[in-house]
Each structure stands twice: as structure tokens, then as C-alpha cells.
């Protein structure tokens, strides 16, 4: 029995296993069955752009695409565009114009995962989609995405109180604006002052001043960030989220898939799927080579695949297999994999 569609469908796995292609084929399958689908890639590699034939100017904007007569929406994550949307929706224009925020929200500035949480939540709240299919970054960076929830929570918790307490005591300026002096004074501590004075020795005083200003501006948009946290509960709900861990025969590493599952166990509910991609079994099973070298090739390919499946079955209950697609055409890849999803639905 294959997976039924849910509001969130998340694809994760190590690099090079075909995660993006499988996520896209799933989105196409769901769209073909009448769902309003948004496909989001938060993988900075942006292979989705190639698969969907999108140009560079599409990055960061929801675009309508049509493949084989099937229409769906697609979004290539852009931290910069997400910041702009947050600034517009929260009426906080300083967020998009702050120097430090601009540097950190460059495509490779490092805030992709955290801002992705905000973006996904914003798109979900739009009500425009039945399902959001998420193509996440490879390997450990997928965990960064999941852990982004905790990072946002901690950032808008103790550290903010600490730093604003310090500012409040120092000048009263920023503190007055956001909290009022009474609350600020309550949190003033000698330890924070000491910490910032030590940090100033390393980073220079100007950085501390600039960073505090950036933090103050980010804080004005805290509601948008904190909404991202609410995703955590939704993703952990069986009725709201399908989790797909992807690995491939080519990679041949059961251990990595098992470890990824273990690391993400706080977030992934037990009703998840392991997608084994690039299976060669159907290609070589009826092959009866005579030459020794070819027998070696066949034996090795079969043993690698059967050994991998055996190990995966020890850790995963629901395993869906997808074939190796030898075509050079991305469209052909998508077509074959989308057809495979249909067999799991029937």
C-alpha cells in the first residue's frame, strides 16, 4: 500500500541519490490526480530549476509550470526573496535593507534552512495549496532544516533578552523602543556586559554595534520567524505529513539512511517511507551472461542491491523501490518515476 497525499510531503536523503527528481515526480503525480501542489526546493543546488526548465529569474518566486499537460506551482528557495516577503507582510522595511541581513541572506549566506521554515509556513498559510512537496538539502543539511526550529526558538528567547538587556542598560534606546525600560532593567546582568566586552576584543566594537542593530531589526519580524516554529508540530503529525527518506542502489549505503533516520527521529513520525532509487534488479534479473567478466559484473550488481535491501529492511517497514532510468532526458526521468508513483497508489 502506497502513501496517501498529505498537506506536507518531505523528501530527504544524502547527496546524489535522486531526491530532487523523486520529489518532482511525486509533485507531478499528485498534481495529475487533481491536487493543488506547490513544489519547493530548499536545496541550494537547485537541480529543480533544470528539471522544470525554469530560468534564473524564477528563483525566489512561485512559478506555474506545465509538464506533460500537468500544471503545478514551483518555488526555488531564495533567502533574499523570503526576507523581502517578510518585510512586506510584517511592514518592517528595515529588515530587507539592513546591511548584515542582506549579506547573510545572499543565496549562499548560510541562512537558507532557517528562512525556508518561514517560507514554507507562509506558503501553507496562503491556503493556495492542498500539498506542499519539499525537496530538502542533502544529508546533514536536512538536519539543519529540522533543527532550524530549535534555533529560531533559542534565538528569540534567551539571547534576545540578554542582548537587549545590555543595550537597554547601555543607552536605553533600543530597549525603550521594544520593551520599555522596566522590563529591560529586569534582565540586565553583569555577565552579559562582560560577555559582550570580551567579544568586542575579538570582533571589534563596530561589529557588536552593527550586529545588535541587525538583531533589533530581525526582532521586529519575530512573529514571522516564530510562525516557522509551528511547522514542527505539523510535520510530526501523521495526518499532516509524509516523510520520504531517499537512498539509492548506486550509493549502496544502508547505514547512512539508517543514521539519517536516527538523527531525525525527534521530528519524523514512525509512519515514514524509505525510497530506494536507481534499482537495477529488473534490468539484470533475466540476463544470463556467459563470459566470466560479465558474470562478475552481474553478480556484483545483484549482490550490492540485494545486500542493501536486506539491510534496509532491518530498519524500515515501508520501502518503495524506483528503477534506474537510463535516459538522458530529464523529462523521461520524470515521466517514468511519475508512472511508478501510480503503481504504488493503486
Amino acid at each position: 500500500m502506497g502513501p496517501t497525499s498529505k498537506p506536507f510531503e518531505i523528501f530527504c536523503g544524502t547527496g546524489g541519490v535522486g531526491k530532487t527528481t523523486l520529489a518532482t515526480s511525486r509533485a507531478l503525480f499528485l498534481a495529475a490526480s487533481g491536487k493543488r501542489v506547490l513544489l519547493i526546493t530548499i536545496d541550494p543546488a537547485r537541480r529543480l530549476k533544470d528539471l522544470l526548465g525554469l530560468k534564473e529569474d524564477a528563483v525566489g518566486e512561485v512559478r506555474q509550470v506545465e509538464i506533460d499537460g500537468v500544471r503545478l506551482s514551483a518555488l526555488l528557495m531564495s533567502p533574499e526573496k523570503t526576507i523581502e516577503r517578510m518585510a512586506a507582510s510584517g511592514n518592517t522595511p528595515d529588515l530587507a535593507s539592513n546591511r548584515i541581513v542582506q549579506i547573510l541572506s545572499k543565496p549562499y549566506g548560510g541562512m537558507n534552512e532557517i528562512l525556508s521554515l518561514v517560507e514554507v509556513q507562509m506558503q501553507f498559510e496562503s491556503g493556495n495549496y492542498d500539498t506542499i512537496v519539499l525537496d530538502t538539502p542533502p544529508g546533514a543539511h536536512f538536519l539543519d532544516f529540522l533543527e532550524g526550529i530549535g534555533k529560531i526558538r533559542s534565538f528569540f528567547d534567551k539571547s534576545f533578552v540578554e542582548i537587549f538587556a545590555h543595550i537597554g542598560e547601555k543607552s536605553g534606546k533600543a530597549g525603550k523602543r521594544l520593551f520599555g525600560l522596566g522590563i529591560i532593567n529586569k534582565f540586565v546582568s553583569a555577565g552579559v556586559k562582560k560577555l559582550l566586552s570580551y567579544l568586542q576584543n575579538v570582533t571589534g566594537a563596530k561589529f557588536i554595534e552593527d550586529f545588535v542593530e541587525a538583531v533589533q531589526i530581525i526582532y521586529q519580524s519575530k512573529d514571522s520567524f516564530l510562525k516557522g516554529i509551528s511547522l514542527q508540530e505539523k510535520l510530526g503529525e501523521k495526518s499532516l505529513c509524509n516523510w520520504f527518506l531517499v537512498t539509492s542502489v548506486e550509493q549502496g549505503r544502508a547505514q547512512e539512511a539508517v543514521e539519517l533516520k536516527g538523527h531525525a527521529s525527534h521530528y519524523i513520525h514512525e509512519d515514514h517511507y524509505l525510497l530506494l532509487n536507481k534499482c537495477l534488479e529488473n534490468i539484470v534479473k533475466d540476463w544470463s551472461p556467459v563470459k566470466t567478466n560479465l558474470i562478475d559484473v552481474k553478480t556484483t550488481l545483484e549482490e550490492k542491491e540485494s545486500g542493501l535491501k536486506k539491510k534496509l529492511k532491518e530498519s524500515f517497514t515501508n520501502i518503495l523501490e524506483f528503477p534506474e532510468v537510463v535516459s538522458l532526458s530529464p523529462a523521461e526521468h520524470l515521466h517514468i518515476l511519475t508512472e511508478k508513483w501510480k503503481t504504488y497508489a493503486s
Partner: protein
Amino acid sequence: MGKTTLSKSFVRLLVSQGHEAVYLTFKTQSMSDNQTFGSDISKNGLREIALDLEECARGYIEKRISSRLIASWIVKTAFFRALVNMVPGFSYMIYLGKILEMGKENSQLVVVLDAPASGHALTMVESTSNFQQIFESGVVFDDTVKMLGKLNDPAYTKIHVVSLPSMMSWQEATELKSGLNQRTPVSVDIVINNYLYPLLEHDLDEIPPQLKEKALNEKRLIDENVTDVQCILPHSLKNSPEGIEADLVGSLSNLI
């Protein structure tokens, strides 16, 4: 696509040629309360180092303020952890600083870094210049200038992008190479791994049609892009990671 296995095999090759080499990887980017310190172990003749973010950050701050105690306290504060966690590029800068320090302490050491995948590799390479822009002046700014000088020195740093011999993997590899070329003047080459064609080229009419198509597609890809490929590594018929590593060692000499 075999980045980790290739990195380890490369270290083995370097060691076999008399170089002092180490396999290095990062631990998680996040700083949490139960995180253990980094490890430096030798396994089957291979020295493997897993850097730990908190330990690297503490070491850097300690050098700057000359106090291990205070440096330990700073990296454990909620503010510092939240800063590093919220701005992941910061951690890359800390890691790269540590690697350069290792090179400074031992100029003979070759560090083979099993770097983050695809776009995250660009984030890593870009982190130093981003933070140089952010800091503008001060001790950290001066250090980032030094780091960029080393990282962008072709005599000091070299980057290998690993790709499979499939069209989509190749496209991603060339996109990554282009992105790296925009960010650093050091040499960036592409290594093709898991090339099946050589095992089948004399028997193409005796193999299943789809396998033949796969092999021929690989061959076409290589032929069309041969000038952009530094090294081609054949598919290994070994089943164990150790066996595959041993096979790769013999094929990697082009990288030196």
C-alpha cells in the same frame, strides 16, 4: 556519489607516496548541550579528524583573549550559541580557520577535506568573504583577510568536484564548478566516479539493452566533456567499503 570514500582513498594514496595527510570532516553545524568534542583517530592506517564546532570556536577565542576559562564560558553562553546556530556561515568560517591553523602548525600536512555537498560547498567557500564584509575591521577582520589569502592561493588550496557519469549529476557538478570559479581563483577540477562503461565496452551486444544504454550514455558524456574532466574512476566490483577504497587508490594518481 562517493565523496567520502574518494576522500579517504586520496589520503591513503598520499600517505603511500610518503606525504603526511589527514582525512578531515566537520561535525554537525549546530551547537548543543550534549555535543562531544572532536575526534582525531587513526583507523586502519588512516588518520581521521572530525572537527567540533564548539572546540574550534573556543580555541580561536582563547588565542585572542589569552584565557581558556573565559573562552570556554563565552562559547557556552546562550547568546554565543544562538549567534552561531542562527548564522550557519559563521561555523564554516570557524572550521576553515582551524584548518588553516593546522596547516600553519605543520606545513607538510595535507588536509583532505570531505566538504559539504553542492550548494553548501559554496556557502562554505563564501563564508569567509561574507564575514569579512560584516566585520569591516578589527581582529576577526584581519584574520579573515589572512584566511582568504590562503584559501585563494592556488599553491595552497585545490578543489575537486566529484560527479557520477550521468547527465544530471554532471550538470550539478558543472554548476558547482562554475559557482566555485566565481568565488575563488584556485584550481577546481571535476572527478568522474563509478564509470561502468570500461567494464562492458567489449561486450556491449551481450548485455541487457538498458545496461547498454546506460554504459553508452556514460561514454557519450565523457567524450563530450573530456577536456573538463581531471580524473575518471571506474566502477568497482568490490562489495566492501575497504575493497572499494583499495580499488580507488590505484586510480587516483591523476589528482596529484
